């Protein structure tokens, strides 16, 4: 315990130096900005800013880059809530209830609870990393291909619960999502699948392209033919910050979201994306009146937002303790570290303690800064909704186009968001929910790859999924959830959950 405090004080000593405070602030500010702009993601930004950090010392550089990353998580929620465009997989869920809240004139409350929940989650996650970082590393090693596949199965069961309308339509959308995820070069054999010989499809469909089209562009189209939506903007915006009642309603969700997000964030292979989805499912299941979900339930914003931020932070654990990046942004951080002459790995903690603990302390400092940056600005963001649509829509379209182009520099990606936008518009018109499709898309790829990997390693024996205790446990949970959903005796109750 003494170690814990001396380590933390070493960390804060590093993080609170004037230069590092300034860099953390700069990182958070840039991160928030790019998070708010639809499409411009942290990956492109960090890659672009890498050369600028050459002149800095490694600790400062990494503090700034990390600030960009979690700043973007904050900013991304703002766009998801205000204009219904999730820039990343993790803010898909926030858009569900957050945007509904905005349409009801509660945008300020949604943004406020997102910021406060994120801050709480960030604080807890920082402590988790500091206290348990090293032992938690083992969790990442327990999850082999079989466990991962079972986790994804459980995730898909969550996806069913996400749906607002008919359960059949939700399952159909999940399957479409899974199918879309199989487009591209097959990982094991290198064969191309469903690419029609088009070279730009050979690496599959980019998540950002799909999400931006299905949510962002489709939302713009829907608003254009929907005069009713326009009135909402001119409604009184109402309170900007959550009140006592809101807090009472959402504090438990924040805590649950933090726990779920922290655990899933540690898992390899981008486990963090599951966090917000899992949290949303849990909240919806626990709610007294699940029908409120999808119609602006504050718990539906508070829980997933906390899970999102907690996961974003605990996903540093595999990077800092093992040197193994769990997702693309962390892979970029590995690059940033190596450029600065620090080879990430198990030795970082002992060889560069000021870097290790400095970064951890700076995460908390950064979270505090984000709260300070974001809360006073809630009013400003909300006023954005008052911008006339004739000005806002072209701006959104432009930012989407620029943002998507900046990811892979592919003109076809820009055309694809238009195509998916059209598809998304048709889906909305026909009463299909896009969120389960996106979850199917995200999980489909991971699920297929891990299924095949597990079967290759077990030489084709399906028993591997039941023989391994963690995998069996996850499958059992998924089964229970499914049975609960299908049991005739509670069928009536379930129907109330899913159909209106």
């Amino acid at each position, binding site marked *: 315990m003494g170690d814990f405090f001396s380590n933390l004080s070493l960390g804060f000593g590093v993080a609170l130096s004037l230069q590092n405070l300034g860099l953390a602030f700069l990182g958070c500010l840039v991160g928030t900005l790019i998070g708010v702009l639809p499409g411009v993601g942290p990956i492109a930004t960090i890659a672009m800013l890498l050369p600028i950090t050459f002149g800095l010392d490694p600790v400062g550089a990494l503090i700034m880059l990390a600030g960009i990353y979690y700043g973007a998580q904050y900013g991304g929620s703002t766009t998801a809530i205000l204009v219904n465009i999730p820039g990343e997989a993790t803010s898909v869920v926030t858009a569900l209830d957050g945007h509904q809240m905005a349409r009801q004139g509660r945008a300020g409350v949604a943004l406020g609870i997102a910021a406060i929940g994120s801050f709480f989650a960030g604080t807890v996650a920082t402590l988790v990393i500091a206290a348990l970082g090293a032992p938690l590393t083992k969790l990442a090693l327990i999850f082999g291909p079989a466990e991962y596949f079972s986790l994804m199965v459980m995730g898909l069961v969550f996806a069913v619960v996400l749906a607002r309308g008919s359960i059949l339509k939700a399952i159909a959308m999940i399957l479409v999502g899974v199918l879309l995820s199989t487009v591209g070069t097959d*990982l094991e054999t290198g064969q191309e699948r469903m690419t029609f010989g088009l070279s730009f499809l050979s690496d599959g469909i980019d998540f950002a392209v799909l999400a931006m089209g299905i949510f962002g562009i489709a939302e713009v189209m829907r608003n254009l033919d929907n005069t009713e939506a326009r009135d909402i903007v001119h409604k009184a915006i109402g309170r900007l910050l959550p009140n006592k009642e809101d807090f009472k309603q959402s504090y438990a969700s924040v805590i649950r979201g933090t726990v779920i997000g922290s655990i899933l964030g540690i898992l390899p292979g981008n486990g963090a994306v599951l966090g917000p989805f899992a949290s949303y499912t849990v909240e919806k299941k626990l709610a007294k009146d699940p029908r409120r979900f999808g119609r602006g339930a504050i718990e539906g914003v508070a829980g997933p937002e906390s899970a999102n931020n907690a996961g974003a932070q605990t996903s540093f654990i595999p990077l800092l303790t093992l040197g193994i990046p*769990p997702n693309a942004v962390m892979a970029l951080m590995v690059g940033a570290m*190596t450029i600065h002459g620090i080879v990430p790995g*198990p030795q970082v903690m002992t060889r560069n303690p000021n870097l290790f603990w400095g970064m951890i302390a700076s995460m908390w400092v950064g979270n505090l800064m984000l709260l300070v940056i974001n809360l006073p600005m809630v009013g400003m963001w909300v006023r954005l909704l008052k911008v006339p649509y004739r000005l806002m829509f072209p701006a959104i379209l432009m930012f989407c186009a620029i943002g998507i182009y900046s990811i892979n520099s592919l003109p076809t990606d820009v055309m694809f968001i238009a195509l998916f936008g059209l598809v998304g518009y048709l889906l909305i018109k026909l009463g299909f929910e896009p969120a389960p499709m996106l979850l199917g898309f995200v999980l489909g790829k991971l699920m297929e790859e891990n299924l095949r990997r597990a079967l290759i390693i077990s030489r084709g024996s399906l028993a591997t999924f039941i023989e391994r205790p963690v995998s069996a446990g996850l499958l059992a949970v998924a089964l229970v959830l499914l049975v609960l959903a299908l049991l005739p005796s509670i069928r009536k109750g379930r129907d109330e959950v899913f159909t209106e």
Partner: protein
Amino acid sequence: MKKIALTLAAIGLATAAQAQTYPQRPITMIVPFAAGGPTDVIARIVGDHMSRTLGQQIVIENVAGAGGTTGITRAAQAQADGYTIMMGHMGTHGAAPALYPNLKYDPTKDFAPIGLAAGTPIVIVAKKDFPANDLKGFVDYMKTNGEKVNMAHAGVGSVSHMTGIFFNAVVKTKPTMVAYRGTGPALNDLMANTVDYMTDQIVNVAPQIQGGNIKAFAIATAERSPALPNLPTTKEAGLDGFEVSAWNAVFAPKGTSPEIAKKLSDALVKALDDESTRKRLLDLGGVIPSGAERSPEALQKLVESEVARWTPVLKAAGATAE
């Protein structure tokens, strides 16, 4: 006829003038892999110093996909004015013709070689619990139990995939191959004892070897690496014919004027002589090419010999990506 000659002369003059004032605006260097990987890091370190020599920023553009061939195809088709160059590597300019039958460029003909930047040696690593403690024991085990063993790699066309196939061909073994999306997840499962071994670039595996999470059998270079001084070379450990390092080199599109190519290649050589650039590359476990290896001609020869080396190995293993 005279007209054509005049036009040609005029073009010649124009390009010469262009070459003299080159570079006047930022240069784009296409890196055909995601930001953060070994090739990207090397490109950024070398590009940083070249920018200072040339007086113009070299902007790194990551165009990932299809084992790097997407980015190289784009760069090969760019205008040959010296403002688009690329960082190719062993895969894109050595193995690609065998892996991708529909490849839209020919590594030996469609480029103006600028020079070799840096290579990263390949290390043979295995899970901590592997029942062998040196390369000889490992090779013996593989010869008798090959089919029971799982080899991990970072996806078809990746360095670990190609060098793994090469190793298996040298040792004459046929393990089960397990593909991962990138080195990170593959290493994760290697550390968790889920898969048995892999061959990968030193920069990716050295920290885990030093941390005692995986074991290393040998490094596939002629000399030991200062990053892992205790690790024997493959030759020292008694295995001939497995010497390979993942080289990275700068290319320009075919038709780039020799003057511009020379300016670029001089800037590259200068970067490789710079003390702090060298230190950064060496910290990665990188191998910096010496005198004669740095010329564009040497790079052209290297590409030709690499295509000749990889094609039969990969074809025999039945590895194609289309």
